[in-house]
């Protein structure tokens, strides 16, 4: 019996060890590059939504776990991917960046929303999404649509967001994006507003 286990087990074990070694090498080679790509994609979208800011300091999810918890409950169904202090060249805070992932038609829509210190939305953009090409992607190809969120007051968050019409043929996607901006507004009102004057100042 033992002999049978050895005969079958050893080849599987050897293959697994070699495979694991190969993967470890690939992971080590690509790790930094993947992290850099990820950071770059986030920073690029944050710069789009907050043109005044030059650097973005992420609010630490470990140190400020309470903030993230409150943000998650303010966002409701929408996933919260990150909260950022937006700083200008001199290091003064000019606003907040919020990464959220509301549900769209083809899964979560990863997006960035900027809010200035007066609580006005400065912009919203999409980092990545899996929406139907030609339909859901209209939220990007109709270039005048996303800018309609600019200037919305977060104090009336959910209500003012609903004033932005959905796009015909992209109802679910535009509703998702609206929910994303609404969630960011709620996060600002419930969490970020009271954190003003924190470490970034």
């Amino acid at each position, binding site marked *: 019996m033992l002999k049978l286990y050895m005969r079958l087990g050893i080849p*599987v074990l050897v293959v697994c060890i070699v495979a694991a070694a190969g993967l470890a090498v*690939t992971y080590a080679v690509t790790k930094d*590059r*993947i992290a850099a790509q990820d950071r770059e994609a986030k920073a690029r979208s944050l710069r789009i939504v907050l043109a005044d800011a030059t650097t973005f300091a992420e609010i630490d999810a470990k140190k400020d776990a309470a903030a993230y918890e409150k943000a998650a409950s303010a966002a409701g169904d929408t996933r919260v991917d990150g909260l950022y202090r937006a700083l200008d060249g001199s290091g003064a805070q000019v606003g907040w960046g919020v990464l959220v992932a509301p549900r769209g038609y083809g899964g979560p829509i990863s997006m960035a929303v900027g809010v200035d210190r007066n609580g006005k939305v400065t912009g919203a953009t999409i980092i990545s999404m899996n929406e*139907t*090409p030609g339909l859901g992607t209209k939220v990007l190809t109709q270039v005048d649509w996303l800018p309609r969120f600019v200037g919305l007051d977060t104090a009336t968050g959910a209500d003012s967001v609903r004033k932005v019409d959905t796009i015909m043929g992209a109802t679910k996607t535009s509703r998702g994006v609206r929910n994303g901006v609404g969630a960011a507004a709620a996060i600002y009102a419930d969490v970020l507003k009271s954190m003003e004057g924190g470490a970034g100042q």
Partner: protein
Amino acid sequence: MKQWMKVLKNGLSFENPLTVLMIGLCSVLAVSSRAEGSFFMGVAVMFVLVMSNVIIAAIRHLIPEEVRIPIFIVIIASFVTIVDLVMKAYLPSVYSFLGVWIPLIVVNCIVLGRAEAFAYHNRVWLSVADGIGMGLGYTIIITALAAFRELFGGGQIVFLKMTLVTLPAFYRPPNILLLFPGAFMLFGLIVAGSQALNRRMAAKQAAAHASVKEAM
């Protein structure tokens, strides 16, 4: 060499994984809405196919038959993970479009099917030909389907941020081409077309064979 070419051509025509064997279709219907993504999906599948075929053919005498499937899966999954990591690092835009379909290559019937049906019984050299042939057969069909859907359903083809073709503005792209029903219908037409082509090729080969025999 002659046999090598024959194996390679088989993957493109008489045993094309998509139009004849009809395996690995879900990924085709799902990602063939953009030519760029489909092309890289094809390249990824081809890489995994060739590499897993090579390894499996090379160690086929050492793999006990009872545990061959787990071993195949470990080998295939490793190469898929390598593709996954490399693509995430160097082609992030393509990666975000393909999303879950890259990891899903592990369970793509083409790869496991070729490991089981070909690489486990053939020499390394021929298994390379099989991998390339099957991979090319997959890539060509999926990219052609995607290029058609993107062009006539979206109005233009964009490849690595370059716009290759744009249709004039008066053409109003029918959205159905970009949705799943459109993919099904177009794929049916592609299958019909390639069947006709294969039949004609087979008839020609049979005729050539017959005339050789007559001459002898």
